[in-house]
C-alpha cells in the first residue's frame, strides 16, 4: 500500500529486534474476545484512480456554483480565489506543519500568524486578535463566555440581527455552563430596541453588522449604553469583506469582535472548515481564548515569534483554562492572511465596492418586480426581500430552472410564519450582470 513504507523484510527485521514473533503479538493486551469481534463489512484498499472515480461520482450529484448562477450567502459567501493563494497554502511546509510549539523551526507559521493577528485587528478596528477559532459561531460563543468571565455576570442578550447559527451555538455553550441567554426574535425589518434592554445584569449584548437580514447598523450609542451599565458589546461580522467599506466595529466602541473569515479565506466548501475571527481590547488579553503569537528575540538578538500567554490554555491551565480549544483553524487563517496580503488596502476596498455595487444592481432590478420589497434601506452585499408568496417553493422552482436563487428565511427560522415570504439574496463580485438578469427574469416568471 502506497502510504506504508515498511517492507516485509523491514517488518521481519524489526520484529526480531523487538523480540516477538508477529505483529499480532504486539496486540496481546487487547482482550481476545473483543479482537475476535473485529470483522468489518467495508471495502479494501483502492488505487488513486478508483478513489477519484468514486468521489467524483458523488461530487457530480451536487449542483455547483460554476454550473448555476448562485446568489447564496447567509454567512457563507462565494468570492474569487486568486490563483496564487491556493498554491501558497498547498506548500508542504504550511499544509503539513504541526502547531508551532517548537518556535525555532516554525518561524514561517508564527510570523504568518502574527501578520494574521495584525490584519484582523486592523480591519475590525480592535487592539488585538487571536490566532483563530473554529468558526464564527463558536467564536461568538467564546465571546459570550469571556464576557461573563470579565464582568463576573451570568446573562447575555442576543439581538435578532445575529446569525441564527451564531445564536444557537452560543445558547448551547451557555446552557451547559449554567449561564443565561435571552434571544430576541429575528428582526427582518430592523426595528428592535436594544438600548432600552441594557441592564446591569448583562455580561454583554451580542449584535451583528451587516445583520442577518442585511441591515447596516451603527452600534456607537448601544456601546455607550452597555459601558454605562458595566456590560460589554460583542459585534459579529459574518461577511468580513464588508469591512473594506464600512465603519469598523472597533470604531463603534465594540469590546469584542467575532466573525468568520471564510468569505476571504476559502471557497464555500459546503460550509466548512471556516476560520473564526476573534478580536478584543488589550486590557482583556489574559481572558481571551485561543492561541496567540507574540514577538520576541532569540539568543542572537534576532527578532522572532513564539506562542505566548499559553498559561491560559488547556494544556497548562487544564480545568481553569479560558477555553478547551487546542487545534483551531491554522491553515484557513493563513489563507485569510494571504488573500488579505494579495488584496492590500486598495484591493480590499475595491472588492468591497464591487460587492456592494452588484448587490445594488440586483436590488434595482428586483424593485421592478411587482410585490417584491427590499427590506433594508442600507445593505452591503446581501439583503432580505419580502415576496408576495412563500419563499421556499420559489427557491425550489428557481433550482429547477438551474438557478441557486437565494435562501428562504424559513430554512433558518421554521417556526416563524411571519418570515415565510422572506428570501435572503446575496450578490458578490462573482455575479455578473447577465447572472442578475437571469435571476430576475426567472423570479418574474415564478412569481406570476
Amino acid at each position: 500500500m502506497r502510504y506504508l513504507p515498511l517492507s516485509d523484510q523491514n517488518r521481519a527485521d524489526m520484529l526480531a529486534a523487538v523480540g516477538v514473533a508477529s505483529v499480532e503479538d504486539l496486540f496481546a493486551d487487547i482482550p481476545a474476545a473483543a479482537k475476535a469481534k473485529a470483522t468489518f463489512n467495508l471495502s479494501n484498499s483502492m488505487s488513486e484512480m478508483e478513489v477519484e472515480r468514486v468521489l467524483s461520482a458523488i461530487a457530480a450529484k451536487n449542483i455547483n456554483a460554476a454550473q448555476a448562477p448562485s446568489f447564496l450567502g447567509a454567512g457563507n459567501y462565494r468570492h474569487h480565489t486568486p490563483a496564487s493563494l491556493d498554491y501558497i497554502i498547498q506548500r508542504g511546509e504550511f499544509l503539513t506543519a504541526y502547531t508551532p510549539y517548537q518556535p525555532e523551526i516554525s518561524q514561517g507559521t508564527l510570523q504568518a500568524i502574527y501578520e494574521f493577528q495584525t490584519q484582523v485587528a486592523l480591519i475590525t478596528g480592535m487592539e488585538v486578535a487571536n490566532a483563530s477559532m473554529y468558526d464564527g459561531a463558536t467564536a461568538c460563543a467564546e465571546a459570550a463566555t469571556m464576557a461573563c468571565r470579565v464582568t463576573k455576570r451570568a446573562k447575555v442578550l442576543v439581538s435578532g440581527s445575529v446569525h441564527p447559527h451564531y445564536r444557537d451555538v452560543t445558547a448551547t455553550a451557555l446552557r451547559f455552563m449554567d449561564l443565561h441567554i435571552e434571544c430576541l426574535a429575528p428582526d427582518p425589518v430592523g426595528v428592535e430596541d436594544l438600548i432600552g434592554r441594557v441592564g446591569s445584569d448583562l455580561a454583554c449584548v451580542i449584535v451583528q453588522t451587516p445583520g442577518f437580514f442585511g441591515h447596516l447598523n451603527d452600534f456607537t450609542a448601544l456601546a455607550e449604553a452597555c459601558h454605562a451599565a458595566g456590560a460589554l458589546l460583542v459585534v459579529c461580522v459574518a461577511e468580513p469583506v464588508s469591512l473594506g467599506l464600512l465603519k469598523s466595529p472597533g470604531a463603534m466602541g465594540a469590546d469584542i469582535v467575532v466573525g468568520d473569515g471564510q468569505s476571504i479565506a476559502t471557497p464555500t466548501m459546503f460550509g466548512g472548515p471556516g476560520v473564526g475571527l476573534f478580536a478584543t481590547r488589550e486590557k482583556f488579553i489574559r481572558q481571551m481564548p485561543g492561541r496567540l503569537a507574540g514577538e520576541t528575540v532569540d539568543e542572537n538578538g534576532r527578532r522572532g515569534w513564539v506562542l505566548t500567554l499559553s498559561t491560559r490554555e488547556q494544556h497548562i491551565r487544564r480545568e481553569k483554562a479560558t477555553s478547551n480549544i487546542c487545534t483551531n483553524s491554522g491553515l484557513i487563517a493563513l489563507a485569510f492572511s494571504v488573500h488579505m496580503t494579495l488584496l492590500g488596502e486598495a484591493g480590499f476596498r475595491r472588492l468591497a465596492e464591487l460587492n456592494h455595487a452588484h448587490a445594488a444592481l440586483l436590488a434595482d432590478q428586483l424593485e421592478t418586480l411587482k410585490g417584491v420589497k427590499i427590506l433594508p434601506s442600507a445593505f452591503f452585499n446581501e439583503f432580505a426581500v419580502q415576496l408576495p408568496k412563500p419563499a421556499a417553493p420559489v427557491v425550489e422552482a428557481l433550482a429547477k430552472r438551474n438557478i441557486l436563487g437565494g435562501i428562504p428565511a424559513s430554512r433558518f427560522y421554521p417556526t416563524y410564519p411571519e418570515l415565510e415570504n422572506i428570501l435572503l439574496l446575496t450578490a458578490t463580485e462573482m455575479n455578473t450582470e447577465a447572472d442578475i438578469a437571469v435571476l430576475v427574469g426567472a423570479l418574474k416568471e415564478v412569481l406570476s
Partner: protein
Amino acid sequence: MSQLRFTKDHEWVRVEGTTATVGITEFAQGQLGDIVFVEVPAKGKALSDGGEAAVVESVKAASEVYAPVSGSVTEGNAALPDAPDTVNKDPQGAGWFFKMTINNPAELDSLMDQAAYDKFVADAS
C-alpha cells in the same frame, strides 16, 4: 514577635500580631521558573483556610496561591503586577503577594515551621 510558617503548597506566612503577610517560597519560584504574571487579591476579600487567594503564572505553568489560614485581605502587593520578576528575585521579601487579618490564630499551628518545611522540600526532591 513575628513567626514564619509554611504550607504544603509552598506558601510562606509571616505573622505579626493579628496580621499576616503571605507569599510563595524560594523553592516554589524555582519550580515555576520565570514569573510572567501575578494577580493579587483586592482589599476586603474574604479568605478561607486553603482557599484561592492569588494567581501566579510563569511561562510554563500557572498556579493558585492559597490562603494559609482564614481571614480577610488588607492589602495586595500593588507593585507585583508591573514587576512580576520580583517574585523570582526576592520571593520571601519584596515579592510578598498580600497581607491579611487572621480569624483564628490556632490554624497556624497546623502549618510547618522552617525546619519542618526544609525537610518537606528535601524529601520531595
